[in-house]
């Protein structure tokens, strides 16, 4: 549900110092979900840590992040994701909505899904907290329709190769070691990390998507908030 508590919908101009990366893929309809999940999981693999456990004197220890291989059914491709069912479910839900929206838009199948990492900055009442994005990933999707099985087979392989390139691109960005939020104190941790999951701790993120209609204008903007908001109004 849309919430007016926090920042402007993404798709608006990113704030200063928010780096933005754009990836583009052309896929068949049935490949949309797996392709999106592969990219989102790869990003979140790099943007999740183990759970923090704060101890006295401001020190903390970090839990362990497990990983697992995922094979795609419709793409000749495999990727690694964080071993967290909660996180996987959240991503699948978002991607599922995106896919449905793409399909029902009836357009020529263009849209984009965005993964935004942000920090919360508390403001005094009556102002609501600010959400300050610091990294924005946008995946532009172009859905193609294929005529026969042979084309589909080629598409399986080609999309697999393309996704390999995307993974390499993502890793390149991650390796730049650019701005990351400072490690927070215990009182600040919920402004930086999503602490609602029980086994891993991703940076605060939200996923949104847009469907482009045939006129090229964005039709819907759906905000999905996937954080635990402790300041529910």
């Amino acid at each position, binding site marked *: 549900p849309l919430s007016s508590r926090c920042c402007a919908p993404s798709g608006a101009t990113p704030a200063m110092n928010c780096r933005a990366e754009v990836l583009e893929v052309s896929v068949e309809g049935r490949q949309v979900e797996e392709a999106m999940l592969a990219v989102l999981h790869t990003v979140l693999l790099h943007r999740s840590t183990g*759970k923090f456990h704060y101890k006295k004197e401001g020190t903390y220890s970090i839990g*362990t*992040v497990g990983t697992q*291989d995922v094979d795609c059914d419709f793409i000749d491709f495999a*990727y690694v994701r964080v071993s967290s069912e909660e996180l996987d479910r959240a991503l699948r839900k978002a991607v599922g909505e995106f896919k449905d929206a793409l399909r029902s838009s009836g357009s020529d199948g263009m849209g984009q899904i965005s993964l935004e990492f942000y920090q919360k900055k508390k403001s005094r009442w009556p102002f609501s907290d600010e959400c300050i994005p610091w990294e924005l990933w946008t995946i532009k999707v172009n859905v193609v329709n294929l005529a026969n099985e042979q084309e589909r087979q080629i598409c399986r392989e080609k999309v697999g190769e393309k996704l390999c390139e995307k993974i390499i691109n993502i*890793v390149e960005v991650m*390796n730049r070691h650019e701005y990351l939020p400072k490690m927070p104190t215990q009182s600040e941790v919920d402004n930086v990390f999503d602490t609602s999951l029980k086994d891993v701790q991703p940076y605060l993120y939200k996923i949104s998507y847009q469907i482009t209609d045939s006129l090229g204008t964005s039709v819907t903007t759906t905000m999905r908030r996937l954080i635990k908001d402790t300041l529910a109004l």
Partner: protein
Amino acid sequence: AMDTDLSSQDRKDLDKFIKFFALKTVQVIVQARLGEKICTRSSSSPTGSDWFNLAIKDIPEVTHEAKKALAGQLPAVGRSMCVEISLKTSEGDSMELEIWCLEMNEKCDKEIKVSYTVYNRLSLLLKSLLAITRVTPAYRLSRKQGHEYVILYRIYFGEVQLSGLGEGFQTVRVGTVGTPVGTITLSCAYRINLAFMSTRQFERTPPIMGIIIDHFVDRPYPSSSPMHPCNYRAGEDNGVVYPSVEDSQEVCTTSFSTSPPSQCVFTVTKAHFQTPPPVVTDTLKVPVMGLAFSHQLSSSRLSYQPAALGVGSADMGYPVLFAGGLNAAHPHQLIAPGKEGGVPPLPSQPAHGTQADQERMCTPLDGVHYSAATPSSSEDTETVSNSSEGKCGSPHDLLETIFIRKVGAFVNKPINQVTMANLDIPFAMFAPKNVELEDNDPMVNPPESPETESPLQGSLHSEGSSGSSTGNTHDDFVMIDFKPAFSKDDILPMDLGTFYREFQNPPQLSSLSIDIGAQSMAEDLDSLPEKLAVHEKNVKEFDAFVETLQ
């Protein structure tokens, strides 16, 4: 680079981080080429033992190899740690696929915080490595390894050698981490000319000696594996005791066994190796193969020879199980990897019976034998057929026959030529010396007694045990502590053993009895003249028909 700015504690920490980073890097790479999906669990409570806060298993052999290659050194300028991934076909051709390089350059970052930023960035770099290892061409090849080729790895330390990758190889950078003593870089150079793979005709060659794998799955995959603590205040290395390579090469076995196609194990002896010593003496080519990866591998012994896969005729015909743990007491335990997905461990075999059985099943250089780790019906068939031919051969054979066949089931001939007293079987002292005098032996011709307990629970000296047995004609065998596979205990009134005893001698089918057979034969013979007469009458028709065929 002057590192006087670095406190000694920081320096120690940094060296430790780099060392374990190198070890973990090797683990990630090798595990990504095993041909199986990897899965580790997240743990919210810190175990204090997972380096870089990542759940990356440590395969002992791999750690051992890496440590051997590093020989106490750390990657430094001009001294890189390289993991070479290559492919070897069943015909013996091999090809380098990738070289993963962990290098250090001189560019220092003095400002960076060792215990914190460097550590976290190394963790991030490992995550990148996890991701990148799945997107190079060798990943897909390694997932399909098994029948026509296997994937091998080799670790070396020193100068990077990329010449084996062919022309036009590509490089992908996994990442870099700056430290006060230099910048760590991790990259992969990979061959792109894999054309020969698709055009090559892979013929089935008879399997030949390969690499020794003795496996013992020690314990199931634990949620918190006993790794060394990340707490860098702690002392030394991991406490896993790992025997030196020299030890492992002593225990080559002579048996050669494989199991059904997707599960293969090779064993080979040192004696069969005829090749010259390896060129690079400080590294060893070790096969990497889908394996019970989800299982904790404890101390293990992997016997191999460098360049073993190029041994004369001893090329790898079938996939090789890699890096199993080994327990000295059970050298024949098998790990049977499925090609994809999970790998169930085969149950450990009891020390005597079935091990003897397995040894009997396996003949060196004898082609492929399919032996399951547990007694199976196929084994029964084989041994029973031996026994039914009256082949009582050596006491050893007989011993196995007794052990693995269902006692009494399907036996046609009595065993009457063996004195069992001197056989190494349990309760041999209770076995009758002369089998033919068994009629009065309650164990052989058990009394008709109600099924109060499983007859098979009792030992030989338990008089009252045994179920009823209708046909005693084939009871002239010795019942020895028989526990048929999958039989239940004496909980149910009718267990498998009882069932066998009851129904082991069903009456013959009436249609197969001699009388009836003879009868119908007589009838046939009687009717022959009639039939012949009819045919003679129609001989003209037959002739005409034959002419139409010509």
